């Protein structure tokens, strides 16, 4: 479903990704792992077209999307949840979802309801300004926002980072459900091995901007994997 080939990405003169390859088949949950600063966030942003790529290609759903604008990628079915539970702080929770639903060009109440269904905490907060929610609630909103466009694939960048433990569980369950019950393809950036072991079908480990390891879930238990993730 998503294929990344030989991706080079740089911030100005500082190159951060070096020839990254990645394959995420339809319905799979692929975990992107690696220590802080190895380029996981950069990879997702490049896939979304938020950052320009220096070379390499990105294919999604049978089409090359390397040159497309960000919103065009979203309309082709890529959903993205950036790191750090981002919202439109001055818009209400409802408006946050509405903006994303309307941006798809075919807003559907059904899609909004489905997204809300996943997070029982949200419906009572619809009239609150997003900026006043707790970090965990904001993250739930961020995921719901990415879902109201009914994406074919969801990119999640450390959705549990800095979130209170009770809500981490809810988020993990939501991701499980999206993947297992609804068959959504998911690319998940996650630093914690435990979580990856519970969720991932496959994994990719980055180190200093290169893919140094990839495989399926069982291989995550390999001691060499541990070495690549520990600080």
């Amino acid at each position, binding site marked *: 479903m998503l294929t990344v080939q030989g991706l080079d990405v740089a911030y100005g003169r500082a190159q951060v990704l070096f020839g990254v390859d990645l394959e995420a088949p339809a319905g799979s949950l692929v975990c992107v792992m690696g220590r802080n600063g190895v380029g996981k966030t950069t990879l997702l942003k490049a896939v979304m077209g938020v950052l320009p790529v220096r070379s390499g290609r990105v294919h999604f759903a049978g089409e090359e999307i390397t040159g497309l*604008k960000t919103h065009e990628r979203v309309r082709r079915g890529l959903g993205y949840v950036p790191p750090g539970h981002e919202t439109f*702080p001055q*818009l209400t929770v409802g408006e946050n979802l509405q*903006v994303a639903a309307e941006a798809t060009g075919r807003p559907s109440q059904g899609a909004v309801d489905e997204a809300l269904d996943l997070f029982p905490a949200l419906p009572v907060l619809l009239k609150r300004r997003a*900026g006043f929610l707790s970090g965990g609630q904001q993250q739930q909103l961020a995921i719901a926002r990415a879902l109201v466009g009914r994406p074919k694939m969801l990119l999640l960048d450390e959705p549990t980072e800095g979130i209170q433990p009770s809500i981490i569980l809810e988020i993990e369950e939501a991701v499980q459900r999206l993947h297992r019950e609804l068959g959504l393809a998911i690319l998940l950036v996650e630093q914690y091995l435990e979580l990856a072991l519970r969720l991932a079908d496959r994994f990719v480990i980055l180190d200093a901007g290169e893919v140094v390891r990839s495989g399926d879930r069982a291989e995550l238990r390999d001691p060499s994997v541990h070495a690549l993730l520990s600080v």
Partner: protein
Amino acid sequence: MATLNQLVIGASIGAVLLLIALGLTFTFGQMGVINMAHGEFIMAGAYTAYLLQPLVGTQSVLVALPVAFAVAGVLGLILERLAIRHFYGRPLDTLLLTWGISLVLQQVARDIFGAPNVQVRAPGWLTGGLDLGVRLPYNRVFIMVLAVGCVLAIWLYLTRLRHGRRMRAVMQNRQLAAVSGVATERVDQLTFFIGSGLAGVAGVALTLIGPVGPTLGTNYIVDAFLVVVAGGLGQLRGAVIAAFALGILNSFVEFWVDNGASLAKVVVFAVIIGFLQLRPQGMFVVRTRALS
């Protein structure tokens, strides 16, 4: 009585400043653009009213308002497409660029309309005034009603309509809007169109209280920027209060002090600098947990 008179004059100038400041605050808040050429959209609106007068006759102000909105809006859109968009997020560069463009546009106006001021005649129902002990000139009342109407329309647009919601989203978090599927460039264009259009409307309003010349915009642009800064960037409510406060303050200082026009500027500057010492973020600050 004279006091009330100054209040009416000040409030009507405040209303014009508000119309001008709205466009500035949107383009700065959303795109990080300091548009010095915004003043020339005021001029374009005023000359539009001037050109329409022989075609439409004395009721031309009513026709001029929507036409000037469109003319100035399209000018703004052209400027955005041809020049400004290449400098998004670089306020100082846009400042220099648009300052240059502003001078060019003034020269173009001089070439077309001549350097001397021209006059637009107000329709009969806007001359004279309402006597309530103090005289309320109809033209000034009309300007205030116009500004209030425009602010209300903008507020409804921002809060009730799909496009307005989208605009607020881009203003608050451009990248998040893009990854939510919003075509941010299109939103930028629309913002520029509306903001410039409002300056055109302000230009028509100014024809009701004075002559029209190539430097019409220059006289108001600095005050409008002060409104934006004092009101808090991108804040509708702050802009409304700051605009009327500035207009009224200006008018009173001019009245109380002999030969006040230039002194008024100095006093107003001093007050605003003092205010910004106390509240560098302007009147209203966006306060959320997200930012802390």
